[in-house]
């Protein structure tokens, strides 16, 4: 089902491309894609650009429908899409603009360990992590919650985990929204979502979710890196996971529900997966309340996963908590809708910013940043595929043009089935081992599906957001060991 896209794209500059509003009569604003010529060529090979144009149909959308350079074909919105709607002007919220894995996101920790401490023991370390961190399809966590506890978890988010001994108070300061966004409404969550969420706090999941041990191998901004406690040769740990079955169910419930209310609001859309409702409506508010529950679930999940990792490291390296020094640098979502204030043509507006496969990137001085980070800007965590690099970036003032958003990863170029076909007979685990990367995965298919060749080059994607000025490189990491779901 190869479907290419031959629609109109106008060059704005080397890194910005416009899909004109005239492309489709239903578009309320133009589309803008952040890419260079080479990436753009790849973008045209599937239907992702059409999805950028489709998102421009959303009622109340302001300025443009955006796509980051890691854009790829999704369902409804493209992956790598940003769309902001003006709430007072009837702006909508769309569950499909957030995605099924609500608050899928990244968490990055620094350690006092060096590559030398880890390198020789990496195989054992990865096995011990794999045995202690529930991963893979259908995995259950060590944390089970009753219905009453689950309601508390949905309101308190990461704090719920800290109160139960998973981590420390300080971790919350370095988590977006302190690990719990206000306005979560457990009353708007279905029984099915509760059921799916009960056994999954503290589970990694499968697919592209992972836990990775890395080493800092390049510093671009020494000053910012030292603020984050990073230096060349130091070991970092990155966790990628989300709200698990709980979030999938919330999205499913509301995407279906909103499809039924489209007529009532007089909304017509080119794709049913874009179903939406005004933020200021019963339907919109209910989804927002449920989505925030799922977001808090995900922050709680990553908090537990981090603490389980810390315990493994402390035991494995027989060092106390201070010795390993596994401090949280930051935790940030990349599938979420947030209510934020932005300056639009000189006027402050309250917007509902959808980031689907896009990362918030607040500039230096922003009031929501932890005190220590005010001088450098918000950390932006960008994972690459398991054989290449990952990056730590920071937000910039220039990112005002993207509602302070940037890319979220490298973005797929090859379908999962194509990857499995192409890599048949090859052992991805062995190939990675030859490059000095030890990988352990719960599912055999996962490794082929997630092979480096299935992704765009993260170095290229990050170069584009850096050159375009919507975030700034601080340092680059190289993987040493990976636990895959």
């Amino acid at each position: 089902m190869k479907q290419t896209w031959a629609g109109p794209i106008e060059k704005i500059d080397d890194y910005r491309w416009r899909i004109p509003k005239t492309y489709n009569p239903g578009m309320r604003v133009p589309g803008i894609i952040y890419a260079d010529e080479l990436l753009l060529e790849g973008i045209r090979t599937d239907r992702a650009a059409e999805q950028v144009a489709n998102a421009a149909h959303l009622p109340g959308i302001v300025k443009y429908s955006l796509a980051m350079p890691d854009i790829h074909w999704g369902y409804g919105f493209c992956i790598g899409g940003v769309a902001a709607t003006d709430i007072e002007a009837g702006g909508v919220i769309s569950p499909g603009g957030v995605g099924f894995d609500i608050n899928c996101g990244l968490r990055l920790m620094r350690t006092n360990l060096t590559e030398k401490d880890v390198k020789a023991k990496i195989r054992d370390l990865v096995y011990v992590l794999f045995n202690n961190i529930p991963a893979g399809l259908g995995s259950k966590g060590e944390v089970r919650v009753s219905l009453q506890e689950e309601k508390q978890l949905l309101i308190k988010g990461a704090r719920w985990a800290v109160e139960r001994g998973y981590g420390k108070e300080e971790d919350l300061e370095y988590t977006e929204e302190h690990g719990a966004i206000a306005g979560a409404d457990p009353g708007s969550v279905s029984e099915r979502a509760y059921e799916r969420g009960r056994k999954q706090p503290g589970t990694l999941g499968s697919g592209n979710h992972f836990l990775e041990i890395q080493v800092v191998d390049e510093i671009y901004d020494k000053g910012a890196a030292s603020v984050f406690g990073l230096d060349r040769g130091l070991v970092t740990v990155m966790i990628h996971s989300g709200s698990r079955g709980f979030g999938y169910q919330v999205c499913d419930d509301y995407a279906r529900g909103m499809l039924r209310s489209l007529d009532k609001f007089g909304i017509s859309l080119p794709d049913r997966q874009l179903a939406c409702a005004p933020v200021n409506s019963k339907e919109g508010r209910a989804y927002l309340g449920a989505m925030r529950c799922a977001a808090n679930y995900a922050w709680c999940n990553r908090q537990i996963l981090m603490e389980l990792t810390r315990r493994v490291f402390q035991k494995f390296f027989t060092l106390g908590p201070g010795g390993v020094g596994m401090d949280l640098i930051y935790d940030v979502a990349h599938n979420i809708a947030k209510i934020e204030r932005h300056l639009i043509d000189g006027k402050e507006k309250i917007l509902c910013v959808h980031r689907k496969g896009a990362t918030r990137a607040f500039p230096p001085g922003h009031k929501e940043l932890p005190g220590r980070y005010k001088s450098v800007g918000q950390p932006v965590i960008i994972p690459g595929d398991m054989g290449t690099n990952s990056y730590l970036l920071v937000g910039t003032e220039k990112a005002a043009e993207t509602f302070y958003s940037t890319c979220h990863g490298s973005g797929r170029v090859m379908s999962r089935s194509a990857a499995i076909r192409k890599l048949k007979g090859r052992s991805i685990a062995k190939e990675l081992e030859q490059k000095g990367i030890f990988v352990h995965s719960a599912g055999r298919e996962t490794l082929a599906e997630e092979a480096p060749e299935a992704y765009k080059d993260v170095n290229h994607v990050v170069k584009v957001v850096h050159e375009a000025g919507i975030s700034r490189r601080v340092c680059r990491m190289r993987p040493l060991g990976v636990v895959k779901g």
Partner: protein
Amino acid sequence: MVEQRPFKAWVEGSSPSRLIKFLKMKRYEVIDHTADVGLRAYGKDLETLFTNAASGMFSILADLKNVRPKTSLRIKLEAPNIEELFLSWLSELLYQCESRKIIFKEFLIDKLSQNSISATAQGEKLNSHRHRLKTEIKAVTYHQLKVRKIKDYWQGEVIFDI
């Protein structure tokens, strides 16, 4: 892998006997999508289409070879139209699979109309020693959801979020 356009042309230019032969050999196929996985299922009637689509979905999720039809579950659903019913059917099976930890393999449809279905799904409780899981399906999406009759057989398409 069958390409969409040539395939359509092929179907339209085919004789009924050739089509029947095709249908006998193919119940479903996995279709390419950059980030996710699509499924195209076929059936001589809606019942077969729904059954084949469900088998297709579970074959993406797990290796069905060692799954025995030991447990059964009644499923009754309603939806505003056939496409949404198709989606609800797959979505419901996925939910039941995750919450009950059952891999379904066989499907018996008692009653099926444009907006309701009553069926029995049979499968086996997940056993990590005997069963091999493949890919997690997070959800069934509305994107490019299609159920249509082409000549004298039915075809359904969905994209799963993986």
